[in-house]
């Protein structure tokens, strides 16, 4: 098993748009949080933009059963709240999950978070879920534990969650109104009976809200995920956002519905459409308010392993893990390495903070805490997509599985989201129908005016340009934020950013 290279050091030598923190936006994203909460999320790869450069998370699929039905889920596959539809995870017993976690923790010292999220609802499988947590708390106490749930069984689990020192819970809350809920949840299993319709939604909502309150009262961090379903709960999610923030959720993450007929879900078959990237962004902006949105959530697979964005799951399939010899000495050594790495990162973060607070030489722009940058008369904000790897512009356009989307302004680059692609060129047979996939990729990049990558082929170059997206391969191997900021300045110098485009003006105003 290879020892991984530590995540890119690039963000540690900040320049330009990155001067105040790793992304310029880190402080912004976590501002407004209490010191205690901030400390808790500091090295959580899913929550802190800063941490996702250095830390990794994994999910263990130990919880097969579910106690509700969501219209965007087909129970032949993994829980669609935590995974993309159509994914099937290898179900693990608690013992296997513990072994796998230890193997990953030893091989990837950055692995700092273990989440249980599926393939069903973790709290509908309390024995399996808690057995896993119990073992890990003993064998690898430095790993943060987190759990995701639809919320139905949450109130009954809070006591047990508090016992295991689980400090992150994600609840998927799609509504606070039972009439809306009845269009999302056809039934729940409640006290020995399948309950349907508005009554089912009413109970589910009540349990979710009660669970949220109980967790907050216990000092357990709560993140809320919502699935944006156009025409069903899109407007309503603004209300949801207000309610959950008022009750103390520290993050609200709005994700787009994914619905395709071939997934066999209700929404997929009935032709319910997904939101466009622009609709999603508008709703996220509307919900953001003075609170944090998790724009870099990638709806990762429930059995994902690795630094966000680079899935190493294939190295840790159960047959490979079972074959690994891990004696006490090996584990002790691995734990020591993990500790050293954490200390190193903490020291680097300290150094960065000190630098950010030091007086700046004249002429150097300091990026201060900013969340929503307003236009300056020097140029309008521009969305750019980046084919990134380890924090660098290092991916070939055709090989990118996802693009990070940044909003570039005079103040620097701010990560606002990411867009998935169906890899349009995998070098194999499927390249035959590459064209339509390229078209899909271009659609996924809607709203972006430039795309940064290490290399790009002739054909996609032309099509991107035709779609009004400027391909740019000139910043290959540069740190992402620097490259984005540089391209923005190039566009500014070329006189492209003078006239604010209509949509941007509206949003920024």
């Amino acid at each position, binding site marked *: 098993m290879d020892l991984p290279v530590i995540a890119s050091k690039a963000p540690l030598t900040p320049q330009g748009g990155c001067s105040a923190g790793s992304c310029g936006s880190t402080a912004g994203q976590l501002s407004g949080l209490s010191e205690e909460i901030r400390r808790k999320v500091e090295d959580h790869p899913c929550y802190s933009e800063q941490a996702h450069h250095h830390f990794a998370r994994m999910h263990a699929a130990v919880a*097969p*059963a*579910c*106690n509700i*039905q969501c*219209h965007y889920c087909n*129970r*032949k596959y993994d829980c669609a709240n935590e995974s993309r539809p159509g994914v099937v995870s290898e*179900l693990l017993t608690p013992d296997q999950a513990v072994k796998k976690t230890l193997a990953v923790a030893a091989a990837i010292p950055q692995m700092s978070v273990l989440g249980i999220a599926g*393939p*069903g609802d973790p709290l*509908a*499988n309390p*024995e399996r879920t808690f057995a896993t947590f119990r073992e890990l708390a003993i064998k690898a106490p430095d790993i943060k534990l987190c759990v995701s749930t639809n919320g139905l069984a949450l109130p009954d689990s809070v006591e047990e969650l508090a016992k295991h020192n689980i400090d992150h819970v994600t609840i998927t809350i799609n509504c606070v109104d039972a009439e809306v809920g009845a269009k999302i949840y*056809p*039934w729940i*299993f409640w006290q*020995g*009976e*399948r309950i349907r319709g508005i009554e089912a939604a009413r109970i589910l909502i009540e349990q979710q809200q009660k669970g949220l309150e109980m967790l907050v009262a216990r000092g357990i961090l709560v993140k809320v995920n919502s699935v944006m379903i156009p025409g069903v709960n899109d407007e309503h999610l603004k209300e949801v956002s207000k309610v959950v923030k008022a009750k103390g959720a520290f993050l609200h993450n709005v994700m787009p519905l994914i619905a395709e*007929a*071939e997934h066999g*879900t*209700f929404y*997929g*078959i*009935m032709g319910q459409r997904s939101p466009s990237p622009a609709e999603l962004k508008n709703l996220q902006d509307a919900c953001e308010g003075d609170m944090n949105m998790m724009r870099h959530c990638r709806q990762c697979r429930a059995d994902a392993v690795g630094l966000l964005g680079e899935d190493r799951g294939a190295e840790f399939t159960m047959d490979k893990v079972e074959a690994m010899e891990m004696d006490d000495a090996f584990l002790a050594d691995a734990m020591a390495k993990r500790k050293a790495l954490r200390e190193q990162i903490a020291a680097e973060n300290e150094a960065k903070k000190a630098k950010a607070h030091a007086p700046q030489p004249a002429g150097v722009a300091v990026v201060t805490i900013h969340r929503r940058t307003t236009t300056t008369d020097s140029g309008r904000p521009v969305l750019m997509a980046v084919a990134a790897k380890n924090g660098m512009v290092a991916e070939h356009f055709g090989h990118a599985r996802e693009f990070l989307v940044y909003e570039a302004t005079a103040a620097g680059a701010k990560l606002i989201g990411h867009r998935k692609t169906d890899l349009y060129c995998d070098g194999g047979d499927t390249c035959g129908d590459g064209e339509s996939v390229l078209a899909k990729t271009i659609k996924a990049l809607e709203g972006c005016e430039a795309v940064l990558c290490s290399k790009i082929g002739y054909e996609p170059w032309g099509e991107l340009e035709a779609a009004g997206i400027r391909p740019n391969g000139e910043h290959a191997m540069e740190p992402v934020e620097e490259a984005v900021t540089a391209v923005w300045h190039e566009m500014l110098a070329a006189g492209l950013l003078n006239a604010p485009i209509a949509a941007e003006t509206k949003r920024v105003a």
Partner: protein
Amino acid sequence: MALEIVETCVNCWACEPLCPNRAIYEAAPHFLIDADKCTECLGDHAKPQCVEICPIEGAIVNELNEPMNPAGSLTGIPPQRWAAAQREIAAR
């Protein structure tokens, strides 16, 4: 009288812990009900527990081989609509 789990079962484990008679067991390729133990929950619950929680239409049948959760009853997808979508996918 007993219920039976058939091949559409997706092995989600939801039913197994609910059975008052421990009649449900893990097996390959899918879960099974021990017909000697299953009472259809009579005397323990108003409704058969496995049927109430099972998310898969048609996965549990009665002695007449009739699905306890017929097509469309859990997903809300009308069976004709489902068939039409499958035809459309196959024709692509």
